[in-house]
């Protein structure tokens, strides 16, 4: 993938033909997903922006809990001191 993966609020504003303040308001309201890289730096992931432009919003999934015989195995496959042969 060679295209840019994010837009700045100013770039998004230009595409949407609104002001940067309007884009910042959309971000603040949670309407437009964005990543705050630093207190002054905000990036809007391109796929999220495209979804917003297309009016696509994810439908909320219902999560269920189901029994399993398996215990979780986080860290499996990692080289961890206790697991290494002496």
């Amino acid at each position: 993938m060679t295209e840019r993966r994010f837009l700045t609020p100013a770039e998004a504003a230009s595409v949407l033909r609104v002001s940067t303040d309007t884009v910042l308001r959309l971000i603040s309201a949670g309407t437009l997903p964005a990543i705050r890289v630093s207190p002054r730096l905000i990036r809007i992931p391109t796929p999220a922006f495209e979804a917003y432009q297309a009016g696509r919003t994810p439908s909320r999934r219902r999560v269920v809990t189901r029994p399993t015989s398996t215990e979780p195995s986080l860290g499996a496959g990692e080289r961890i001191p206790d697991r290494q042969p002496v």
Partner: protein
Amino acid sequence: MRLSGSALEDYLADVVELLERYGALVDEDPQPFINASPSGTRWFELRAGLPDGRVPSRSAIGVREAWQPVAADAFERREYEYELLDRDRDYRRAFHLHDREVFARFFDVVVHEHCEQPIGTSTCDHYAGQPVGDAFAGVEALVGTWVDPNEPNCGALTCLDAG
């Protein structure tokens, strides 16, 4: 962080929604689930393909958490793994909390990170890291890494295994 069983289901639904709002495609379509193991632990794992222009996508974010029962219908997050595989730029970043007693004993830390570039190669098995508050923070950190035009600098991290 303590949640009831139903609140944990809502939490996972929120995580899925956040990933999808960022344009990721969560594999568990249409219904994500939480596993309830014989020990009472609740755990889940998600893989979300990142929109890298390929079908299926090769780059992905993984989210795994294990929640221990601490009271009647109350669970606390005990372990997590938040991972990013960026195959276009060929790196892996991960934030982990597991085997906490081992890490405390050997490295005097509880959490650790991984950084591989290229994927599968690293000069350090575990890097020092900061605790990640929840899956939302983990996902946002990894999406932020994915959109960052600068690739991760593994060499700038502090290796726990060195020396």
